[in-house]
């Protein structure tokens, strides 16, 4: 906090953007955006999903062309027509969704992006040198498919650093990292800043931005709503700038009836299954129960078996015997998704496009995806015809209930922003009033306003008597909404612990796979001591 607000490294700016405008059809994705970055600063770009952050960054990196305005690089106007040119200027980018080939080694992936005819061994040596210099250990010879998400991100960063950029753009870098991995990333960023490099840091995690960023530019609906020093703001005031209204804080009443008094709505008993492909994770001995009225959270870093676990509970993959998964007292292990929905379960997968929704289909058709069996009478007429009127009525209801913003009456799923599509996918289940909801990453990549709304809906559903299981990488989210939390690591699930007694650090250690038992025992011991 010593240098807060006191950065006067150089009078010249590295990058300056004046009046940048980008129009898609009738939508102004960027509307006269101004901001600048000076050498040796970490500059945050804040905004909700759909605020225009990605559009802006794509124009800086040359993958989109602005319709108006000017970009200045070291005080001279430039037009960046493609990423190659951006790299030549000295702009590097680490994308949120990694662009790595899983079946190639780290060095091969780096070589692919560098192009040219440098030998692989030379690249590997260079990559190792850079990785040591910045505290980003990587193994150049390992296949990317075998690496954790944090390691993959390090490859992306090393690859970016090898191009010796002056400005590095990081898009939501910590969304996939454990708190410990994030710490390491922050240390690297500090080192880069100390060397006079500049970083444009895109994140929705306000505490992080406050911690590491020197200045922030906040975007809303394509316009700059403010520049600020994030350290002078509170997380709440930053969020309010982004959303344009005060975010209502989540209301979480205590569980009314004693949860232990009622029959569990779902019981999973010793669920194990082999990996279905070389890149999937086997599950072993998962045991869990969810009671009516409570939210159970499952924490864990992506790729530790959460997707496999979700597909096993949703019935996309069947179990070896019916009693492995009991839903409301019914043996569900041998039932497919439709059968499980008929007995009151509802599911919301992590991937919105291509799993939870068909991108090219209209929203009303996408409602049918999960409702055709559970609400057959309402939506399917004689001869198996689809009742379109009933579907659009349901869509109207969901749109109204969750304030879904869309263009047109019944647009294609792919035309909605992530947050709004997530509202539709979850709304389609809320609308059924299910007895059990399984939601995988319900607010992943969703803006703060929509996320708060979704979390409130989840809590309300539970407090109205449903059992809810939320799988999430976002610890803050779980600590906010869950009553009990378990951690999934390498295909195994820990015991659940009450949410009010657990800390981020403990969960983070368990997520990293670091001997959870010991910490867990300590935790339980202190819990018991505290209760007495």
């Amino acid at each position, binding site marked *: 906090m010593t240098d807060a607000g006191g950065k006067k490294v150089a009078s010249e700016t590295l990058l300056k953007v004046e009046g940048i405008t980008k129009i898609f059809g009738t939508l102004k994705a960027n509307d006269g955006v101004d901001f600048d970055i000076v050498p040796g600063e970490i500059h945050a770009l804040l905004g909700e999903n759909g605020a225009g952050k990605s559009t802006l960054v794509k124009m800086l990196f040359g993958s989109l062309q602005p319709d108006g305005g000017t970009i200045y690089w070291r005080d001279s106007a430039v037009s960046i027509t493609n990423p190659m040119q951006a790299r030549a200027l000295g702009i590097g980018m680490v994308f949120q969704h990694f662009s790595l080939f899983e079946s190639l080694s780290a060095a091969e992936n780096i070589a692919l992006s*560098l192009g*040219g005819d*440098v030998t692989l061994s030379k690249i590997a040596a260079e990559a190792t040198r850079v990785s040591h210099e910045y505290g980003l250990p990587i193994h150049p010879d390992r296949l990317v498919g075998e690496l954790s998400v944090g390691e993959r991100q390090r490859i992306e960063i090393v690859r970016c650093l090898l191009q010796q950029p002056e400005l590095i753009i990081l898009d939501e870098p910590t969304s996939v990292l454990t708190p410990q991995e994030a710490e390491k990333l922050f240390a690297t960023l500090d080192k880069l800043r100390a060397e006079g490099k500049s970083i444009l840091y895109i994140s929705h995690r306000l505490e992080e931005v406050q911690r590491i960023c020197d200045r922030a530019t906040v975007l809303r609906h394509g316009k700059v709503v403010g520049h600020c020093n994030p350290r002078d703001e509170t997380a709440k005031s930053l969020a309010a700038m982004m959303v344009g209204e005060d975010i209502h804080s989540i209301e979480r009443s205590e569980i009314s009836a004693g949860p232990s008094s009622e029959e569990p709505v779902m019981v999973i008993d010793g669920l194990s299954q082999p990996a279905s492909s070389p890149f999937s994770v086997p599950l072993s001995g998962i045991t869990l129960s969810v009671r009516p009225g409570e939210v159970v959270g499952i924490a864990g870093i992506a790729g530790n078996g959460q997707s496999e676990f979700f597909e096993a509970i*949703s019935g996309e993959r069947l179990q070896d015997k019916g009693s492995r998964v009991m839903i409301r007292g019914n043996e569900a292990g041998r039932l497919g*998704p439709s059968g499980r929905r008929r007995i009151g379960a509802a599911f919301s997968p992590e991937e919105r496009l291509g*799993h939870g929704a068909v991108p090219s*289909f209209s929203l009303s058709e996408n409602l049918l*995806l999960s409702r055709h069996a559970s609400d057959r009478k309402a939506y*399917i007429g004689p001869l198996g015809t*689809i009742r379109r009127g009933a579907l659009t009525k349901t869509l109207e209801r969901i749109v109204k209930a969750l304030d879904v913003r869309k263009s047109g009456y019944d647009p294609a799923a792919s035309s909605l922003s992530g947050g709004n599509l997530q509202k539709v996918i979850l709304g389609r289940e809320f609308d059924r009033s299910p007895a059990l909801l399984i939601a995988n990453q319900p607010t992943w990549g969703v803006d703060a306003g929509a996320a708060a709304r979704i979390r409130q809906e989840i809590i309300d559903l539970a407090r109205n008597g449903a059992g809810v299981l939320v799988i999430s990488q976002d610890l803050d989210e779980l600590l906010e909404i869950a009553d009990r939390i378990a951690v999934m690591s390498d295909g195994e699930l820990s015991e659940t612990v009450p949410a009010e007694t657990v800390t981020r650090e403990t969960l983070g250690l368990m997520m990293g796979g670091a001997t959870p038992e010991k910490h867990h025992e300590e935790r339980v011991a202190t819990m018991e001591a505290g209760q007495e």
Partner: protein
Amino acid sequence: MRIELVRRPNPSALYSALSPLLALAITAALGAVMFALLGKAPHLALYSYFIEPLTEVWSIHELLIKAAPLILIAVGLSVCFLSNNWNIGAEGQFIMGAIAGSALPILAPDFQGPLVLPAMLIMGMLGGMAYAAIPAVLKARFNTNEILSSLMLVYVAQLFLDWLVRGPWRNPEGFNFPESRNFHADAILPEIMSSSGRAHYGFVFAIIAALVVWFTLNRTLKGFEIRVLGQSPRAGRFAGFSYTTTVITTFLIAGALAGLAGISEVSGAIGQLRPVISPGYGFTAIIVAFLGRLNPLGIVAAGLVLALSYLGGEAAQITLGVSNKVSNVFQGILLFSVLACDTLIHYRIRIAGPARAE
């Protein structure tokens, strides 16, 4: 230097709608160039190819005869293609349908009456379904590539037909020609308007099939299931739709329609089995399906266009003295034009310079 296809952010809706017409225009233009190179006057050649067959009533009947199998097969293929099942073996299913349906009048010529024809049509559909079931089950059960298995089964069917008409099913009174006996009157598919031309009820079947399939695909849960699994299999699984059931169902639908086309052709247009009963309808129907944008109603129009290319080939052979292989060339150009138009509507070409070492 390398050439890249870059996805267009907003493909033009206008061009998407016009794409089939655009492809036809490109085909006509390339055809004109081809005729010019062959030393024929392009405008006369194009006239005799595309216009002349439409100037006489009997010729329009011939057009419907050729369009009927193309539409029937292509409608079935559209169901397969929409569900991401690449059935390339409709030609074989067509032949097997023809053989299965013909078994009745050939093996039991004394069984006559009004039941013969419906029985033949049903047997024809069953024959096509049974043959389509082979690649379907192989794909559903063993994840076999259906493109290869269905294509290779075409040649098996062709040789099987050839063997039948030269061997066990040869006409005993046929002077050793490789043909089956002629079907008796009750086994012949009637003509629609026998006063003006030969067109038979096969075309009516094609229109009915197109309407029924269009309704099923666009208005029913089953059609929804097929489209979902074609667009994103994972979302289909999430919805609780069965991948294997859909693979088999769509193949069976395509097989049934190809088989119906086969028995209609043999019973309506030919009247007996011969070593070759199709000028490649099963393959041309693939072009028809894409030219019709996999929409059964569009396929009716596309089927008529491609049927014209067969007739035009015959006409051009007579009036211009060019080989009727020109039809195949036209069909090939048309398929490439359709695919190229669709590709260029969704992507633009970028020529990237040589990658530079850092």
